[in-house]
């Protein structure tokens, strides 16, 4: 059971209070900032990386 929990559980402990970053009037949680950064990374990767395609498409 412990192994299953370790396998499917969160990589970090999410049970504690959240962490926040503050800069003047701007306040954002670290979790939200991480998600925004991930979105930017995926967006840039989608632009730069080629889309895998089937090799036998000669008619395209």
């Amino acid at each position, binding site marked *: 059971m412990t192994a299953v929990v370790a396998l499917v559980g969160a990589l970090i402990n999410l049970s504690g209070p959240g962490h926040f970053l503050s800069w003047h009037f701007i306040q954002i949680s670290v979790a939200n900032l991480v998600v925004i950064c991930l*979105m930017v990374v*995926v*967006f840039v*990767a*989608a632009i730069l*990386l*080629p*889309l895998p*395609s089937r090799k036998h498409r000669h008619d*395209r």
Partner: protein
Amino acid sequence: MTVSPPVTEADGHDDAPEPIHPEDAGQWTAKLRATAVEAFPPARILPDRQPAYVASALYVFGVLTMAALSIVILTGLVLAVMGPTWWHVSSTGLFVNSLHLWSVEAFFFFMVIHLWGKFFMAAWRGRRRLTWVTGVVSFLVSVGAAFTGYLSQQNFDSQWISTQAKDGINSTGAGAVFNVLNFGQMLMWHIVLLPLVVVAIVGIHLLMVRRRGVVPPFAPEAAPAPAGDTPVGSEAPVAATTAGEAS
């Protein structure tokens, strides 16, 4: 109206639309059918091929958003059938509840990237304004749907969110019909009203994508355009492979 060829004996149906009898031409059913068939012929509503420029990962996020929305709806249906005690107490209920939450996270994740991509493509070009507007409205309504979902958690988190939001909502005057402290009302908004609106607007959005086609990329600026060149918003597709695409 052209006369369709005779019905084949194989299946009793024909691909061509039924001709409208002159006596029936004034009926609203005939007018609606003719308009719908003209706007959305089967090859356009469910095409087999896409233009060559769609072979980019940036064009994937719309369908990823739709896939996430499907999981949101399916898990929401299961939660509605089984009820709060089940999703709060049983391990299976907690799992489905988590699936509902994380599919919403994925939905917004993909939708925002889809939004960025379409914004930088200026995807409202080529008579695609309604496609863009329905996308914007579906995004805004989805925020409301997610908000009422957070209010429906029945925990300290939802209590905190509702008490933080009440003054702002009430200051707009919407508090009379949208009371964030009224759990039953927020649950109904979350599981009935807002999902209906989201699904309806996303449906219109998809129909508009099929109607106008996927927006083509900007034309390369290799040579200076001569006077009287194609205006912005009417670019021809780079390599359209389907008859109904990029119209």
